[in-house]
């Protein structure tokens, strides 16, 4: 008969950790060399050396003397920064050396048939190896990025990140960005109300509600399918042409708000609906059993719970909306993007558009963190022992 001891008669011997730790050593070394190469290029770029000058010095076979003479002019703090950066890749050798030591320890333990010690050392060694490799990848990508920006006489850097131009035009672009902020702030309020109305219209109960449900469904289908740039274009240019009173002579910003509300109202209506449908039917039953009617049940029991659940997807849609405010340039509104494009063509440089890009990213990050905090606060309030 088979016993358990039969099955474990041959314990597994750990594989040697040497190859992996050697690979880690190789990768760390290459990473360090690449880093130093990029830093050298960076020093040259900072000293204002052009590709042409490099080519000439190579031709005259005096590359090092010429280049060292140039970089020696750099101020001391530039050297300090470069030196600190040059030390960064050396940190990779801490895990690498540990990996190799552990791999050797594993080999020794195996010679003394100490299986358990060998396994522990092997596991440690491979952990340290992967640690070194993972950080190497990060360092390579980071310095690769720097190289990309400074290559070809700082081609990318001068096209997108011309700091003096950015600094000079920042206030113009930022004040134009207030138009974007105004558009999405107002639109968000409208969208919250309009989206809820559409969502509730899609859920009106009974056979009598059929036509209302149908209308609401048609609306969401149409405006989710329509690209928002087309909606903005049609409304922004079309409504003034109709000559309707009030509706025909609003400032362009309000057409943008109107168009974005129509588009994003359709998205947000679906988010609301999903949130409302995610509330368990027993909540509806409990509220109705207390004598609350359908409207009261929705208002006090279902919608408040649904809103807590839909805040994260709602933020998603709002970030989409905020980015889409850049589309209002098609109807000639001077928003941040339009302003920066004008500046870009006046200065033959895209750096002013980079400012807009940075502004859009900067406004979304605090919102995401705020929502996280709100949800956490609400969760800790309603849950757990008190």
């Amino acid at each position, binding site marked *: 008969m088979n016993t358990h001891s039969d099955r474990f008669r041959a314990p597994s011997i750990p594989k040697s950790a040497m190859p992996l730790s050697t690979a880690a050593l190789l990768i760390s070394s290459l990473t360090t060399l690449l880093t130093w190469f990029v830093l050298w290029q960076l020093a040259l770029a900072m000293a204002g050396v052009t590709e042409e000058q490099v080519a000439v010095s190579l031709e005259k076979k005096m590359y090092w003397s010429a280049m060292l003479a140039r970089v020696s002019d750099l101020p001391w703090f530039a050297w300090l920064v470069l030196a600190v950066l040059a030390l960064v890749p050396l940190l990779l050798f801490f895990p690498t050396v540990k990996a190799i030591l552990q791999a050797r320890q594993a080999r020794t333990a195996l010679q003394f048939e100490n299986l358990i010690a060998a396994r522990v050392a092997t596991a440690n060694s491979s952990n340290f190896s992967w640690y070194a490799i993972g950080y190497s990848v990060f360092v390579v990508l980071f310095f690769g990025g720097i190289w990309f920006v400074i290559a070809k006489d700082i081609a990318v850097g001068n096209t997108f990140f011309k700091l003096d131009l950015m600094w000079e035009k920042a206030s113009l672009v930022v004040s134009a960005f207030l138009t974007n902020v105004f558009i999405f702030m107002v639109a968000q309020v409208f969208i919250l109300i309009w989206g809820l109305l559409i969502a509730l219209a899609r859920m009106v109960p009974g056979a009598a509600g059929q036509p209302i449900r149908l209308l609401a469904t048609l609306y969401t289908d149409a405006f989710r399918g329509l690209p928002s740039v087309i909606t903005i274009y049609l409304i922004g240019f079309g409504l003034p042409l109709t000559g309707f009173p009030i509706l025909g002579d609003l400032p362009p910003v309000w057409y943008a708000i109107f168009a974005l509300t129509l588009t994003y109202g359709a998205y947000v209506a679906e988010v609301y609906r999903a949130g409302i449908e995610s509330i368990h039917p027993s909540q509806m039953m409990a509220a109705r*059993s207390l004598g609350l009617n359908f409207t009261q049940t929705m208002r006090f029991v279902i919608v408040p*719970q649904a809103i807590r659940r839909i805040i994260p997807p709602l933020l998603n849609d709002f970030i989409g909306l905020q980015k889409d405010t850049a589309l209002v340039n098609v109807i000639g509104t001077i928003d941040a993007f339009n302003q920066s494009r004008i500046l870009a063509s006046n200065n033959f440089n895209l750096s002013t558009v980079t400012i807009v890009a940075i502004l859009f990213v900067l406004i979304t990050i605090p919102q995401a963190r705020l929502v996280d905090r709100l949800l956490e606060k609400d969760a800790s309030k309603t849950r757990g022992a008190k």
Partner: protein
Amino acid sequence: MSFLEINNVVKRFGSLDVLRGINLSVEEHQVVCLIGPSGCGKSTLLRCINGLEPISGGEIRILGDRVSGAGVDVDRLRRDVGIVFQSFNLFPHMTVLENICLAPRQVLKLSKEEAESRAIELLRRVQLEQKAKAFPDQLSGGQQQRVAIARALAMQPMLMLLDEITSALDPELVAEVLDLVRDLAAEGMTMLLATHEMGFAKEVSSKVCFLYQGVVHEEGSPERIFGDPTEDRTRGFLKSIIEAGRM
């Protein structure tokens, strides 16, 4: 005229007949227990009485007034008939106090002060006044169910329907809820309850009905149903309960 009359009530879900002609009456201040195997229709019957499920046939009357069928003011009916569920169904985004005050304020249009003083009184009665500001998820199952009972009582119903209110509770929490129901019975509250707590049913009820496959298979005093049931099905059911060690 009985307080509650259920005449030949039928309930179908598609092709499934859940209630197949239920006849039952409850007198004022009576406590009637519904017992029977799972799926026999106990919960469905309670929901039909409260108007949460429309019935497919027959009629339900309270004090002679027909409360089933088209045109009945179900919101009004539910004001008079409270129901407590197996899974508590408290509103998780509201405090205990808000849970209890919601219906009195919105349906009975009581002022905030009136509703709160009524709620505090009820919380004192279910011995949870110190939990007024807590949220449901911060309470034990037994405490949540006591709040659910207080919430139903806040509407001052004429009839209470209790749907297996201890089935979702840990055994050590059952007693605190049953004690409360016992008190209500002693005060003369008219109650109709579906339960698996046979010992409790025996002790508290004025009448026990054994439901089987959507009809009242046997009914009588608790002494007779538990002591000397006449029907084979009833005997079989009670035998399996005893074998399971639940009585």
